[in-house]
């Protein structure tokens, strides 16, 4: 399949779509006009597809500077009567939360969907928060798809629902839905309105106390009305396998695991799949509870529905057992899979479940921890900085490395060990401010270009104003790298693929009054060391911007131009000091069985930084 087909394939056709791609198609079938995001795994591919097709689709798309801004862009579009779609990873909703909570109060005019891609088991995230709880905190209707087809169909449903009740709708996916591929039957793409018109009404759109007290009342009224919908929605369905001993209430990915375990073992159970799951359909669930002997709740990742079920049982004084996370039938943390569900169900069903023999090995398996790519400019930055620190005889224990969210956080790995603290987007600087105040240790904060625009500017202002002593290294690789290479405000292209003004990190740093501000190309190690030397000795806020394109960009450019430079080791000159392997740690280097050092030509990116690293000048261009 070609990406364009997500837009161009006709009604009635089928595509093998990723959950994230299905979200794009669903938005298009729902007549979306405005789409905004800040990239974050597992939601990123939605943006990557819109980046490629938005112009042709007649949709406005942007990579906003952060999730809060993205949400506000979409909220405004919806207030102006357009259909809008904002998506982010689960922790992105924390950044957007301030506006998100109140946008549910003000409501919308055009349909608006907020998609939160949660990451149970934290494949690529800093926490495991379950944003179904955010839905309850905000009071926003919630949709939980179980596969790409449902993702697509729920987009259109969500827009209609949102417009009918004039409230944004939250769709919660998880990694296993966002990154699941499945067969999707397509509907018709509808062209959204190009321009909206904002009809003023401060009583709806100004959240001063006088207005919000009314909005709060209105919100509860809406939620009660929407609960009638969830009670009767065909999206919430019962699958009766012909028994009443166990009734399983489930949603999202957990539903898939339950279904596979139930069919494989031919279990006689009754299943209630909740797809339109908040406001929680109390009567529907009560009827279901009454129709079975005992209940199992299978959900990821918090016992959210389980507690709702327990509340219903308590409220109606029902004497039935509720199995789930709280009694230990199923694990309290991490994502599920069919084996976990099977293990849990084996404890409560009166039947031997299929158990397979499986193999294991006693051989040691190599560790494949994520590493900075060959040719990654961050490695040069870390190498130069580390060397300067050594030259200045600064003690490692006396330095706190406060790092941030992005590929460069991998600097925490040996041999660099330059990552002592990391919390969230932009935290490197705020944390740095705190350490600068309360210790005499030297603080070095690392932040990427995209993360700097996202949440790095307010703490930089804070550092300057509060006279902190911090070296801030802005690792500007001209891209939002970790999520797969999206544009950001520092590059000359916008989310539509159109030319756009580059926002200068250097000018921002100067503008807020940082004492020493320098931009360097880190692959020039000598220059980098000189600048780092000054910056490390500076008493105040110093900012060094290490500007060099991500290896993904340079590799693509070289491929396009047909340039292929590879480096090799002159074995006669090499003294096997292993600085290239052990100190520089480019993954293209390896030690042969005979102890000699070599470069894997498949991995070598041709950046040539290793040439500067080698004290014997033994690395040369391969002819």
């Amino acid at each position: 399949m070609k990406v364009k087909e997500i837009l161009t394939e006709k009604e009635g056709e089928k595509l093998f779509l990723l959950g994230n791609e299905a979200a794009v198609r669903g938005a298009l079938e729902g007549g979306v006009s405005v789409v905004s995001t800040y990239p974050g795994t597992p939601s990123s591919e939605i943006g990557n597809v819109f980046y490629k097709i938005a112009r042709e689709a007649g949709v406005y798309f942007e990579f906003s500077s952060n999730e809060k801004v993205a949400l506000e862009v979409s909220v405004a579009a919806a207030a102006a009567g357009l259909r809008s779609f904002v998506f982010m990873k689960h922790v992105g909703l924390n950044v957007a939360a301030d506006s998100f909570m109140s946008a549910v109060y003000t409501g919308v005019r055009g349909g608006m969907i907020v998609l939160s891609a949660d990451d149970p088991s934290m494949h690529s995230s800093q926490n495991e928060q379950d944003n179904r709880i955010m839905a309850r905190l905000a009071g926003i209707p919630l949709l939980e798809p179980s596969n790409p087809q449902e993702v697509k169909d729920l987009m259109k449903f969500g827009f209609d629902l949102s417009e009918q009740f004039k409230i944004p709708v939250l769709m919660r996916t998880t990694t296993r839905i966002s990154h699941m591929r499945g067969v999707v039957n397509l509907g018709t793409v509808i062209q959204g309105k190009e321009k909206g018109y904002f009809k003023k009404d401060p009583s709806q759109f100004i959240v001063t106390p006088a207005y919000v007290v009314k909005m709060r009342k209105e919100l509860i009224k809406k939620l009660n009305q929407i609960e009638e919908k969830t009670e009767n929605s065909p999206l919430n369905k019962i699958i009766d396998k012909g028994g009443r001993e166990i009734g399983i209430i489930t949603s999202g990915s957990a539903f898939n695991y339950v279904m596979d375990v139930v069919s494989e073992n031919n279990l006689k159970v009754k299943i209630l799949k909740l797809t339109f799951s908040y406001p929680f359909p109390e009567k529907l669930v009560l009827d279901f509870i009454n129709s079975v002997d005992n209940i199992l709740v299978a959900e990821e990742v918090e016992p959210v529905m389980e507690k709702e079920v327990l509340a219903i049982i308590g409220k109606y004084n029902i004497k039935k057992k509720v199995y789930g996370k709280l009694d230990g039938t199923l694990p309290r943390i991490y994502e599920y899979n069919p084996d976990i569900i099977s293990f849990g169900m084996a404890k409560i069903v009166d039947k031997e479940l299929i158990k397979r023999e499986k193999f294991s090995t006693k051989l040691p398996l190599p560790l494949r921890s994520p590493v900075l790519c060959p040719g990654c400019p961050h490695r040069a930055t870390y190498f130069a900085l580390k060397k300067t620190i050594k030259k200045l005889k600064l003690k490692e224990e006396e330095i706190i490395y406060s790092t941030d969210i992005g590929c460069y956080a991998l600097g925490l790995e040996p041999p660099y060990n330059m990552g002592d603290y990391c919390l969230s987007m932009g935290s490197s600087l705020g944390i740095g401010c705190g350490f600068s105040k309360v210790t005499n240790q030297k603080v070095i904060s690392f932040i990427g270009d995209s993360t700097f625009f996202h949440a790095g500017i307010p703490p930089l202002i804070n550092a300057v104003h509060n006279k902190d002593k911090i070296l801030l290294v802005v690792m500007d690789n001209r891209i939002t790298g970790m999520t797969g290479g999206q544009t950001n405000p520092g590059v000359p292209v916008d989310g539509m693929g159109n030319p756009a003004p580059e926002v200068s990190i250097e000018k921002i740093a100067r503008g807020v009054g940082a004492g020493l501000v320098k931009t360097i190309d880190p692959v020039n190690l000598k220059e980098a060391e000189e600048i780092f030397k000054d910056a490390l000795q500076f008493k105040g806020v110093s900012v060094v911007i290490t500007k060099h394109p991500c290896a993904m960009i340079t590799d693509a450019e070289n491929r396009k131009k047909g340039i292929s430079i590879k480096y090799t080791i002159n074995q006669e000159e090499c003294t096997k000091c292993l600085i290239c392997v052990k100190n520089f740690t480019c993954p293209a280097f390896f030690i042969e069985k005979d102890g000699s050092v070599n470069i894997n030509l498949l991995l070598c990116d041709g950046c040539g930084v290793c040439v500067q690293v080698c004290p014997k000048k033994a690395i040369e261009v391969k002819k």
Partner: protein
Amino acid sequence: MSKESDRGEKMSMKNIYKIQLIGVGGQGTIKASTIVGEAAMKKGLNVVMSEVHGMAQRGGTVVTELKIGEAHSPLIEEGAADLLIAFEPAEALRALNKINKESFVIANSVPIVPFTVSLGISEYPELSSIFDELKAKIKNLSIINAQEIAKEAGSIISENMVLLGAAVATPEFPVDKDLVIQSMKENLPPKSIETNLKAFKMGFEAVKM
């Protein structure tokens, strides 16, 4: 090797066919899996697939799982994979928990030694002991040098298509070869399709089961 005409029957006997792919970031495992999935869809079968993105991709192990047939979840139960395609020998061992003694296994013989081994913080087992262990456990095993074959076909990057060809050649593979080839044409860049098709064909012929 099964005859093309058998494939539909095999599928209906076994109502879900489970394929596990494992490799290292950059080897093209996701592309190979997607091609299989689309081919299955063309055959009119239901198919679900799980892939890895993001942090897990940076030089790490990449796992994709496919269930062809009436399955809801793409995640394969332990010991339940009908076919394992291992793009790297040590990774074949890592996926042992997913297969059983009846499973078919295609394993690439070319190791990718991670950097952690050079740094001395992890160990890569002797290749011969990997192969010995695979041979001892798996009866339907084919170990092929996909890199060598890809080189012969014209490009080392076609390694994934060599392994895909080998997988399609295993008995019981539920999708017709022609549909896989059609799906390759729709998923791979036109300028490299000839090399890829050659690699696929050579991989297909390399398997004797």
